[in-house]
């Protein structure tokens, strides 16, 4: 498969601050690639360098094999969908979409044709003469994407375009975006701080922190096998314990005084470490002494009912440490009440231990 984008040892500093601190990655053609990270991690800086609005301090950016350093944004085969969308308020939908085409000197007829086609593809047929300020959030979104895609860029860059939408619309747009990307087959590079957006839509996700990539992986792997404690903590819900290693073979004692046998992900842990356990890894109402399980008691504090996503807040053994446990919605757990004490267990491989 061809590589749309190859980035090598890319760096950008603002004074002493290293916004992007040596990044290498590539994106295959036609993939949906997300860059996920908390605000201030440098993801916007990275995106703006790819788009050409920022000059890197060092490193290389190649798009479809061509070096892009020193090439101005309008000469790069990439287009950017801005965070605020930047739809021109003084033009209608059709004029917004035609804006880039006109600059390429397409004939009037071709432009009309192309605008019509793209609007059809984003399900806004007949919206040419509408004023952009009268569109709904989701419609604006689609116009902004259409405005860029109509130019048939090699890569479409998206800068948290769903940030301003409300929750429900965001869920819809996630699916919509994924579909659009499939339809067009354009490479999408999407940056976001919302892990659910990244996981749902992407073929691959890069988790970024402090100007560096922590892990590049498929969403599934990212969730199941986080490579670093930052990824374990940032991607998906999890229970976090501070602990000390008491046996090099993989036994820790948490700050609260509970012993866990753990799965040592970092091999060079000295003493202090963190243990992460996903809420759904904890199995309730199990007893026994299978070799590869940790067993403990849970005192139920609160049941957080949320339909299929119901959880309980419980304390572990006789400590005050609260953890979150997923509650499968089947009859078996329907009777659980606040205040009850229940036996539970978690598989050793699900107790991931990081430095």
């Amino acid at each position: 498969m061809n590589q749309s984008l190859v980035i090598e040892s890319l760096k950008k500093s603002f004074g002493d601050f290293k916004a992007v601190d040596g990044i290498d990655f590539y994106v295959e053609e036609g993939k949906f690639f997300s860059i996920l990270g908390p605000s201030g991690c440098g993801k916007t800086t990275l995106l703006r360098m790819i788009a050409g609005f920022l000059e890197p301090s060092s490193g290389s950016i190649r798009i479809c094999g061509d070096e892009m350093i020193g090439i101005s944004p309008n000469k790069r085969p990439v287009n950017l969908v801005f965070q605020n969308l930047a739809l021109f308020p003084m033009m209608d939908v059709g004029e917004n979409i035609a804006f880039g085409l006109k600059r390429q000197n397409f004939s009037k007829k071709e432009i009309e044709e192309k605008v019509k086609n793209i609007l059809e593809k984003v399900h806004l047929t007949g919206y040419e003469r509408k004023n952009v300020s009268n569109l709904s959030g989701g419609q604006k979104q689609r116009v902004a994407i259409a405005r860029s895609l109509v130019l048939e860029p090699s890569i479409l860059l998206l800068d948290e375009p769903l940030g301003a939408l409300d929750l429900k619309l965001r869920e819809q747009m996630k699916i919509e975006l994924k579909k659009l990307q499939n339809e067009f087959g354009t490479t999408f590079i999407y940056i976001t701080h919302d892990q659910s957006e990244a996981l749902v839509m992407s073929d691959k996700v890069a988790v970024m922190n402090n100007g560096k990539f922590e892990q590049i992986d498929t969403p599934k792997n990212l969730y199941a096998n986080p490579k670093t404690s930052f990824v374990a903590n940032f991607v998906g819900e999890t229970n976090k314990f501070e602990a000390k290693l008491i046996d090099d073979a993989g036994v820790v004692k948490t700050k609260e005084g509970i012993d866990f046998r753990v799965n040592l992900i970092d091999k060079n842990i000295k003493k202090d470490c963190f243990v992460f356990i996903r809420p759904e890894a904890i199995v309730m109402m199990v007893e026994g002494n299978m070799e590869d399980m940790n067993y403990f008691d849970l005192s139920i504090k609160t049941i957080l009912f949320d339909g299929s996503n119901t959880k309980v807040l419980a304390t572990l053994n006789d400590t005050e440490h609260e953890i979150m446990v997923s509650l499968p919605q089947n009859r078996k757990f329907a009777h659980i009440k606040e205040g009850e004490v229940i036996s539970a267990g978690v598989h050793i491989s699900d107790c991931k231990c990081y430095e």
Partner: protein
Amino acid sequence: MIKSLPKSKFYDNGFKIYVVLFYIFLFSPLVITCILAFNDSDFPTLPWNGFSLDWFFSDTEQRVGLFSDSANLKSIWVSIQTAFFVSIFSLVIGTMGAFLFEQEDFRFKQGLYFLALSPLVIPGVILGISLLLATNSAGTFVEENFGFDFSILRPSFWLVVLGQFAFISTFVLLVVSARLKKFDKSLEEAALNLGASRFDVIRLITLPFLRPALIGAGAVAFLMSFENFNTTMFLIGSDTTLPINLYLQVRDGSTPIINAISFLLIISTSILAIINLIFTKKENSR
């Protein structure tokens, strides 16, 4: 074009040179005026004959310094009084107007608002002559029918105050309205809900919120009044304000005493402007 777009050295430097030239253009008349206030010469021009404070303090036959020139001093005093009354009156009416147009709803509101803004597009000269004509007619009417001379209706100190007030109120109204637009009405409702009286609400909630705008508008009103020429020109009685007085002196040939007055004006307005700016900055950052 902007920071994030590629740009040429030529474009960048060309722009910088333009900006520098613009600022030189902006400041040269003021700077030269100030410098020449201290030249030891009988005319406001070069060559430089040495530093002198004559045009401020001297009191000789040839050179009458500003602080010995009673006509100029008096006009400054008249201007300060005028500006004081104008800013008080226009602050009161302008603020009331802002409340009226921002918070109340009534018939003909649009039309009335239009009327309230109209002084912005009426040339000052026209406002001046209209008021002169109207008050003159009214004065004549009063004199003929009631047999006494109503002095406020004759060109006089108070007529100047009235004329300036007529259009300066509009500026106050705009400044206060802008601030009032940002006011969250639920704050008032919360205060009422917590048992405050209508009066308490205005005193404790609304006015403190408007304070920066009121101070700013007051300063603007004072300055506008202090330097108004066009409207004042027609309404003036025997008490000449400073701009009129200066105009007469500039027109009929000038001595560096005008530079001395200008210097003081430039310094004091700059200080006032900076204080006002620091004040609004502080209020905004809170």
